[in-house]
């Protein structure tokens, strides 16, 4: 087996959190090697440069690895899950295909046990993370407006907000009429040139990647700076297992290189940044006599407490064109009217409304996220024309509470192209989440009708909605009830760190990437202070 030159810190995964850690550590003069199973995405390869761009959403640019099936993907057995996990394997990770909706967790999200008697408090709080939120905002570049009363005051946004346009102004009018909270979304998408990157030209489908770098995928934000600072990034490098030295500490990893050769990378510390499914998969695949149930898994919690954000989708149809094909697909406005706990609603914790843009031609025909296909036959033309460019979809993104039965395990039969056992996901929507989503559907209908919708349809649970993978190696003070400590170190292996969504104690009711990255920078800051 070939052995690479040893390094100070090995980072596994080059996505949202791995890139942030690599940048922070390399900037402090710490040697960093990052192993990434995907490759760089050539900006010219994005489908936006082709007339048939929309067809690629269902094939090679699908967010579902089981649909995409690229060589760098691994299969996920999700037959026992009501939500399909989504991810992307590349430099930039899932920030390649995210919509860059960029809210933060709120202060109460870190204190759910103390405030609401459910789940667990985080061992860190909003105030601790605030400087890292701000630092991350500067690195990613955020469009928005300060002053949102749903949050403590934030630092100035890097660029003005994404324009509401006709669609956003229409739904905002509904929230206004109801007297509910709404705010132009914080979006990690530039509306002005910033930090050497270009402003968005409002082409639309951010979920297929951003060919001009206006959207903050970490291949265009953190990585160029990390590489300039000396970090080394190895692509098409699929890690098979993390290795331990005789002292019981992590000493590196064994991986398959681009040509399929087995190699060893030694390091003084290892950082896992492989997402909420990839990280527990790797730990469970790293079994040894010392850790027969998987590395750093004496608690038995590796892979458990998987949280997605369950999404319900409510779509209103209007009598006039809304220009929904213009502008970033996932970002117009957010409402957090029903975010904090109010037990009179019949559930604990809460949710956000995320209002996206309109549906493109093929998505309109197939019903978009609601999934109600336009009827075929003689009525097709009329039915399609009544829908195309006349819909607004409100997503209800509910806080998912951690439950041990929702988990990632290893599939006994399924494996990737290298023969590494694949993950199997088990997930059942909780009764609390169901009640929460039902409340959101009813309130979403109110908002759409107040905005002028003449017809409302909904999807009670979006199956292809597992964008957010959280909780499977959670942070805590007690080694019996958590996998990593408040500094991001595994209780069982103190030089093994976890910085991706696996670390999340709870999921909040907002998109998590901003918070995942803030936690990653916080952990990296501690490593820097301790010099890894």
């Amino acid at each position, binding site marked *: 087996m070939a052995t690479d030159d040893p390094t100070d810190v090995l980072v596994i995964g080059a996505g949202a959190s791995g890139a942030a850690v690599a940048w922070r550590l390399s900037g402090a003069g710490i040697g960093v090697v990052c192993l990434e199973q995907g490759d760089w995405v050539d900006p010219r390869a994005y489908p936006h440069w082709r007339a048939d761009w929309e067809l690629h959403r269902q094939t090679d640019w699908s967010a579902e690895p089981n649909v995409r099936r690229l060589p760098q993907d691994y299969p996920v057995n999700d037959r026992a899950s009501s939500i399909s996990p989504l991810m992307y394997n590349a430099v930039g990770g899932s920030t390649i295909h995210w919509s860059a909706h960029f809210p933060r967790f709120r202060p109460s999200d*870190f204190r759910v046990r103390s405030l609401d008697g459910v789940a667990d408090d985080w061992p860190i709080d909003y105030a601790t993370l605030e400087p890292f939120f701000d630092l991350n905002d500067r690195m990613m570049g955020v469009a928005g407006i300060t002053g949102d009363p749903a*949050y403590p005051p934030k630092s100035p946004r890097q660029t003005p907000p994404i324009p509401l346009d006709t669609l956003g102004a229409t739904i905002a009018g509904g929230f206004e009429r109801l007297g509910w909270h709404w705010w132009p979304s914080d979006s990690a998408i530039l509306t002005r040139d910033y930090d050497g990157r270009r402003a968005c030209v409002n082409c639309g489908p951010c979920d297929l990647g951003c060919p001009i770098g206006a959207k903050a995928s970490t291949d265009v934000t953190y990585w160029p700076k990390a590489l300039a600072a000396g970090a080394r990034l190895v692509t098409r490098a699929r890690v098979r297992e993390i290795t331990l030295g005789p002292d019981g500490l992590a000493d590196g990893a064994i991986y398959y290189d681009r040509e399929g050769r087995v190699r060893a990378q030694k390091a003084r510390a290892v950082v896992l940044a492989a997402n909420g499914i990839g990280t527990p998969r790797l730990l469970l695949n790293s079994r040894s006599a010392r850790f027969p149930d998987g590395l750093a898994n004496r608690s038995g919690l590796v892979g458990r407490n998987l949280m997605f954000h369950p999404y319900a989708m409510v779509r209103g149809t209007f009598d006039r064109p809304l220009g929904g*094909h213009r502008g970033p697909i996932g970002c117009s406005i957010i409402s957090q009217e029903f975010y904090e706990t109010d037990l009179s609603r019949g559930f604990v914790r809460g949710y956000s409304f995320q209002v996206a843009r309109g549906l493109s031609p093929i998505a309109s025909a197939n019903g978009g996220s609601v999934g109600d*296909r336009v009827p075929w*036959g003689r009525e097709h033309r009329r039915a399609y024309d009544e829908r195309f460019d006349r819909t607004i979809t409100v997503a209800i993104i509910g806080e998912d509470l951690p439950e041990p039965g929702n988990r990632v395990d290893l599939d006994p039969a399924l494996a990737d192209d290298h023969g590494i056992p694949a993950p199997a996901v088990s997930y059942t929507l909780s009764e609390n989440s169901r009640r929460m989503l039902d409340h959101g559907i009813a309130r979403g209908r109110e908002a759409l009708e107040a905005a002028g919708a003449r017809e409302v349809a909904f999807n009670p649970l979006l199956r292809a909605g597992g964008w957010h993978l959280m909780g499977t190696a959670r942070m805590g003070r007690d080694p019996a009830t958590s996998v990593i400590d408040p500094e991001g170190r595994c209780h069982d292996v103190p030089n093994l760190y976890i910085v991706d969504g696996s670390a999340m104690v709870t999921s909040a009711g907002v998109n998590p990437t901003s918070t995942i990255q803030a936690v990653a920078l916080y952990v990296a800051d501690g490593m820097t202070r301790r010099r890894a």
Partner: protein
Amino acid sequence: MTPGALAARRDLLALVLDTLVPASAGFPGAGAVGLDHVLAVAAASADLESLLWRGLQVVEEAARAQGGSGFAQLSPDDRESVLRQVEQSHADFFDALVRHTYDGYYGHPTVVARLGLDPGPLQPRGHRIEAADLPDLTRVTARGPIYRQA
């Protein structure tokens, strides 16, 4: 079924597609602009080609059961009636058929242009959004903080 067998039935498939999305209001029928896509995706997947080929057999059999000599000889109303029957009896076939027909049809430049959009690549042109003043958030901010201190 031999490879290419579906392509050999392209005339029948085109009629089926035209029944799913008939020409109307200046829009072409799906048989004219969606057919090539359906054949292309079928040619790339033996399973899909087999599913569609067998489904067309069912369509023809259902058409003959109506007393005619085949689907092509039916009136447009009767064609739709036959397809509604097959939709019920062979849901997997029909779901795949409609999905790929819609993909091909609404991905076709002619149809995209008829919808009023530029059918070319999205980049580098993007879309123009008229500049607007920042939204009036007075009412929202007047409520004061709505988050819990923790």
